[in-house]
Structure formats: C-alpha cells, structure tokens
C-alpha cells in the first residue's frame, strides 16, 4: 500500500443488515408473563425471572429485607439444603443465583440446553419453596455485617453513599446499603412473610433466551409452577427526591488516601423520561467514553487521572447524573476546575456536528456487539421488559439515537446537567485536599469513613 493511500481512514465494506427478531410473549393463568427468544446457535439457555419488587420496596422498619430474602432463596428449599442445591446446580455445570437491586428482584439461571428441564425444576424450587433456614440466615447476618465494615475501606462505596444521600434525600434510592443494626434484627419470619408477599407471579416476567422451544417450555412451566398464586401488587408511593439549590461539597476524610475519588452529581432522569435519547447522546459527547470530552481533557490532555467519565443512571422512578474520576491528591482542585469547565461548556455551546455524528455512530454501532452473546441479548430483552419500554424498542433503538438533534442535546444538557446545583463528593485525605477544593461550593461538610459528620474546625 502506498504512503498516500495510508493517509486517510479507509471506507467501510458493504454493510451487513442486523435485526433482532421479536420474541414470543405469553401470559400464564397465574399472571406470569413469559418472553421467549428461541436461538439455536449454540446448545445453551439463559433464564431470567424478574419481580417488580426491589430494595426500595423494603418495609420502612426492615431495610435490607428484600436483598436478604433474595440471597437466601438459594440457601435451602423444601427439597434441598443449601449445600445440596449448590452441588446439584454445579454438577450440571450450571448456575443459579438471585439478587435484589433498587427496583427488581431477579433470579438468574443458565446452563447447557440439555439440562434446561432440570433448571426449570430448580428455578421453581428456589422461587416457590425456599425454607429460609435459621442457621443460614444467621450466617448471612454475620457475614453481611462484616461486609458492611469492609465496604467502608472502599472509596467508591463511600462516595456513592454520600452522593445518593444528597440526590435522593428521603426517597429510598438514597440508601446504598442497609446498616449493621438493620441486618442484625432481620428474622426468619420477616423473610417468610416478605417472600409470600413479593414473589408473586402477577408481578413478574420470565425471560428465556436460547436453544429451547417455546411450546415445550410453556407446558413445562404450567406443570412445574402449579399452585403459585397471585397476590396484591406492592405500592410505588415514595417521597420525591429533593430539589437542590446551590452547590455543596462533602469530603469523606480517608487519611492516607493516595488518591481523591471525585463524584459530581445532580438529579437526572428516570428510564421512561422522554429526554432519554437526547440525554444518552449528550452524555456520549460529554463523558461516557474514552473519546468523550471529559476523558480527552482530564486524562489525555492534563494527565490527572487514569480515567474520567460522566454517567447517567436512570432507574424506574428517578435517576442521577454523575461525573467521576480518581485523581492524585495534588490535582484534586485542578480536576474540579476542568470538570466544571466541561459541564458548563456542554450547556452553553452546541456540540459540533462531528461530535454528534461520532456519538451516534458509536451508540448505534455497539448495539449489535451487545447482542452477540446470549447473555447480552438477554440483558437487552430484560431491560426492554422491566422498564416498560415499547415493544419495538430494540428494533427502533438505532433510529431513535439517529433522530436526536443538536438542539435537543443542548436542551438536555441545560435541563439535566446542573453544575450550579451539584453535589460534589470527594473521598480523600482532607488534610491534603481541603484547601484546594473548598472554594468550589457554597457549603462544605466533612464526614469520616464511618459515615459520621465531623464537627467543624
């Protein structure tokens, strides 16, 4: 190839079309929705049974209950002890696990497709017939209390705890984890009652992807889920996250810290917000990736950090926007300066046509890569189903990204990036950084790593 030809990036080859077929959708008599995506490419199957009940649905007096209930589903059932269940699953080379997030409780299972019917049995066993043995709960309580202590050595946890408190106020999204005292008072009866109330078929979706036949699956489910009865849906009434006025600074003093973990947060959008696509493209221009403005400025140009990003977290009922970086102590203040420069710029100036085209082609291009594996495809379907997105969401995703305009991007930035009302949280050595950063906010507060506010000096 001649040097002349090497000067410019080559043109692409002929494009190959990509479409995701529509999965089948059925509703069982007990109200369970079943979504099946048949895919025979490899002898594998993935199951995801998700309930519209998560940590935010913990009863007020029992924070941590949903997560405890979820993890204990696999720790003993009518037919198996915890060890027997683990042995049974792992002997198939399979996996089954359950966990709760803010909005959902999800039981996930995957295996070679030749073991699909065994996995349906096991899924039914852990969801319908957990026994919550006292000794397993006891172990969970003790281990969780230790993990909570351990979390306090981790800067990202400390930063998330403070940022969530500022953004969500008295909304349950503010609680990034329960307290040790809350865990210690959980009882077996609490779990049994919560299980009966929340793991109901009419508040759930089962998503199955892989080498499996819909008809056979449905008939097995009707058989194996027999006796699983409907219940009443949980309430979704919660306090509204606060409206913020002014910029706050919270330092979590971690003596001896080799770096400062910076989080600059403000309220964002919920998943179904009509601004979702403009915010998605705006965030791509601003800070989502390694070619976004924030990374190019703070890492590539200034060399302050290994990585600097912005992130949009949209949950079912609310969301937040965050700019984050871990920087060395002596450039903590300088990093804030660059962050705020970029947060202002995306609001005040239109993004260039080139930036917007690049952001869009990234978002549309990675979409088929995300659907390449069964796990990836399952994740896409789970999101579409759990957030009540339109039926043709996956098919229309790329068109929706491409439809976003420069005006919409700037409007989205002006509405959803709010440097003047931001909560700045920095986990680091207060003695080394306070002088550099205190003038970036209207108020300054200092916490210790136990989450206790320190008295003013």
């Amino acid at each position, binding site marked *: 190839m001649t040097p002349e030809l090497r000067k410019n990036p080559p043109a692409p*080859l002929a494009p190959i079309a990509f479409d995701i077929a529509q999965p089948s959708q059925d509703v069982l008599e007990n109200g369970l929705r079943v979504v099946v995506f048949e895919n025979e490419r490899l002898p594998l199957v993935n199951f995801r049974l998700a309930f519209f009940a998560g940590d935010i649905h913990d009863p007020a007096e029992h924070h941590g209950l949903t997560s405890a209930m979820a993890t204990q589903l696999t720790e003993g059932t009518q037919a198996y002890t915890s060890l027997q269940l683990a042995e049974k699953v792992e002997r198939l080379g399979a996996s089954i696990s359950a966990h709760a997030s803010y909005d959902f409780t999800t039981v996930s299972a995957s295996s*070679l497709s030749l073991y699909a019917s065994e996995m349906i049995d096991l899924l039914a066993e852990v969801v319908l017939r957990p026994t919550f043995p006292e000794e397993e709960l006891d172990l969970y309580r003790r281990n969780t209390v230790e*993990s909570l202590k351990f979390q306090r050595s981790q800067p990202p946890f400390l930063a998330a705890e403070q940022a969530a408190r500022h953004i969500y106020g008295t909304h349950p999204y503010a609680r990034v984890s329960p307290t040790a005292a809350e865990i210690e008072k959980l009882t077996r009866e609490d779990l049994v009652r919560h299980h009966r109330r929340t793991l109901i078929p009419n508040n759930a979706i089962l998503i199955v992807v892989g080498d499996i036949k819909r008809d056979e699956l449905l008939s097995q489910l009707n058989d194996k889920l027999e006796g699983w009865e409907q219940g009443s849906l949980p309430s979704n009434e919660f306090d509204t996250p606060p409206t913020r006025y002014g910029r706050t600074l919270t330092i979590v003093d971690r003596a*001896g810290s080799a770096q400062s973990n910076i989080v600059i947060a403000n309220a964002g959008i919920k998943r179904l917000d009509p601004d979702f696509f403009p915010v998605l493209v705006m965030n791509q221009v601003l800070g989502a990736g390694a070619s976004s403005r924030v990374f190019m400025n703070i890492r590539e140009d200034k060399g302050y950090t*290994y990585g600097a990003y912005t992130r949009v977290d949209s949950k079912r009922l609310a969301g937040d926007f965050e700019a984050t970086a871990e920087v060395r102590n002596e450039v903590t203040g300088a990093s804030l300066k660059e962050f705020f420069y970029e947060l202002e710029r995306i609001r005040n100036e239109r993004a260039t046509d080139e930036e917007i085209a690049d952001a869009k082609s*990234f978002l549309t*291009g990675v979409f*088929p*890569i995300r659907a390449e594996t069964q796990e990836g495809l399952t994740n896409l379907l789970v999101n579409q189903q759990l957030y009540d997105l339109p039926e043709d969401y996956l098919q229309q995703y790329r068109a929706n990204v491409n439809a976003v305009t420069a005006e919409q991007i700037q409007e989205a930035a002006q509405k959803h990036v709010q440097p003047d009302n931001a909560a700045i949280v920095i986990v680091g050595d207060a003695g080394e950084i306070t002088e550099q950063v205190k003038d970036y906010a209207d108020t300054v507060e200092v916490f210790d790593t136990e989450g206790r506010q320190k008295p003013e000096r």
Partner: protein
Amino acid sequence: MPHSFSLPPLDIVEHTLANGLRVVLNHDGAAPVVSVAVYYNVGSRNEREDRTGFAHLFEHMMFQGSENVPKAGHFQFIMKAGGTMNGTTSSERTNYYETLPADQLPLALWLESDRMRSLAVTQENLDNQRDAVKEEKRLRYDNQPYGQIFDLINEMIYKNFANSHSTIGSMDHLDAASVEDCQEFFRIYYAPNNAVIVLSGSFDADEALKLVETYFGDIPSQPLPPELDVTEPTEVASTYREWQDPLAPFPAFLIGWKIPPRRTPEFYALYLAGKILYEGDSCRLYQKLVKGDESVIQLFGFTDERRGPSSIFVGAIPKPGEDLSKIRETIMNEIHDLATHGPSPAEMEKIENQFVNDSVRQRQSSMARAQAIAEYALYDGDPKLINTELERILAVTADDIRMAVAHYLNTENRALLDVVPAGQG
C-alpha cells in the same frame, strides 16, 4: 453427558505473510460483527532489570498516535465507527483488540498496521503516558486494600527475575526511561514477525486475507528478540512474609505454589483441582470455611497461567478475631485429603460439566474466540488447538488430579504472605 458432548469445530484458516506476521482467520457469521486481536510476543518477562514496567508503558504508548493516526485517534476512530477496544499487558504478552461492525474491518486493519509500522515514540507522549501509568498504579495497586499482595507473592514464588517482577513495574525505572530506550523496545518487540493477528466474525476469508496483506504486508521484519530464559528451580521452598497494608481493614493471607507450565497435564490437573477447592458454592473450601467454620469473609483462588513455570493461589480474608493459622490448617487438610483420596465421582462430573459449559459460552463472542485463538497461535504456534484442547482437559482423570495435588500442593514448598492492617484508623 459431557463425555459424549461434541462441539462443531471452529473454522480456522492460517497464513503467514512474507514479513513473518502470522494471520489467523476464524469466520463465524452469527452476528454482523468482527473482532481483531493483535498479540505481540512481549510481556513483563522480557523486561530488563533496570527497565521494569516497560511492556505495560508501551501498551499506553500504542494509543498515542502514529504516522497517520493522531494522538488518541485510535480510541476515536474505533468509537466513532461503533466499536469497542482495549489493550492489556501480562507477563506473557501485550494484546490489542477491537470489535467493530463487520463492514469496518478495513478501519481496524488500518489502525493496527499504522501503529505497528510507525508508532509516534516522542518525548511528549512518553511524559504524558508515564503520568497516566503512575495514576493507574495509584488507583489499582497503592490505593486499594490488598492491592499489592499478588505482586508481593510473585516475588516470593519465583526466583528468576523474568518471572518474579510485577507488570506495573518500578516508577523509578519509568522515570529513567529515555525516548531512545522506548524506540529500541518498539523496534525489537513490535515487529510483524513477533506478532499474531486474529480475525474472528463476519467476513469473506479471501477478501479479509487480501486486506491484511495490503495493510501489513510491507511492514519490515526485524531480527528476532533476544532469547529468554524463564526457567526456575522447581521448588518454592517455604517462604514467609508479613506485609503491613495501610488500607486493609482486616488481616488476610495468601498462599502460593509454583506449578508446571500451561498446557502440561500437571497444569490442567491442578487447574481442575483449583475448581474443586475454591470455585463455586459447593467447592470444598467454601463449604468448610465460609459455611462450616464460618471463619472467613472472603475466599478466593486462581491459577496464573504462563508459558514457563506457573502458579496457583488460595487466599482468605478471615473474620476479625479468627485464628489465621487454624484456617490455613483447614486448607492444608483439604489439600491433603485431595492428595490422598482424589476427587469424588461427583466432583469429577461437576468440573467436566462446568468446563464444557464455560467453553461453549466462550464461543459466543467473537472477541473471546479471537483472544483464545491468538494465545494458542502465539504461545503454541497452533491456533487449531482451540478445537482439540477441550478433549485433553476432559481426559484428565481423578487419579491425575490426586497425583498432581500430592506432588505440587501437599508440600511445605509454598509461599505464605500475611497481610497485617496498618492503618491509622
């Protein structure tokens, strides 16, 4: 049953360009996506004693631009085409990879060939990336509780400097590096005849090979890098070190053993023994320590797979107040039991099924395929091992595992690192 389980073989085509670049094509049209992996035969094991951290520094330099690609342009070209990419460094190799919509294959080849041909090794880029590496070290090692323990135990396990020193390396060595050092390193190790390129995904094989030839064919080859000696005395001997970790909230320990190289029957037997000991909720040590004795918060273990002497680790973060030596005794008792009685039939069935499941899952992703194939091509000179190696692993018997555990793990020849919390608070 896994014994009768057979997977259709992956389509593998091999070719070597005149300049020595080895090319492997794995066509798979399941999704309109292509992954490109370039593996250079250089890792921390190739570093001079006064220039540690160089292989990893170079991984950073490779994103700083070349004759026709501006600084940081690599990220941008890939991202604007809708791709993902990265690079990583280990003791064994430095790899670069991207996944793109299939029609963007020429872009990946243009970018990879431009930096192989003409990387911009300048003072400015060197200074800038030294800073980024220092920041990465602070983030991933210095500012993490237990962040340095694997580097420390490698220094205890290995006697040969090529094996024992860390990949992140010494910041003093990086500071001392000149542009000339870097240019020399690039010339020796980033030559086409010291690399493998693998394409996996949707493409026409003839067209793809022609494109590879077009972009890479006229990059000059170089004299081979210096011979490397990674041999070790077999034993570790019992070594002990106490490490004061300013960020660790709890005491912890890590035990490491030196074991035979990857792909030896002994390595596979020990890899499977590891699964029996520390992987999953039904494994022996989880059931003994986390469940039975309830003495441990976190249990972990893994094998570090190398072309030369490799290693296997087991570590635990005990609950406060627990007797660490008693926990270690439990671990050694289980190892003794495995060395005496071998795995049970149920354990054998489990690890076989797990291995088959993992292997099938790995085949879904073009990137995972490209990486696995690249390792076989670079380390073993045979990318088709991806289609036959599963059988070799499934052929490992309970008795093979018993004997390997007896010989390599059930011994005093191990390194023990104790982590002592030394924080202010």
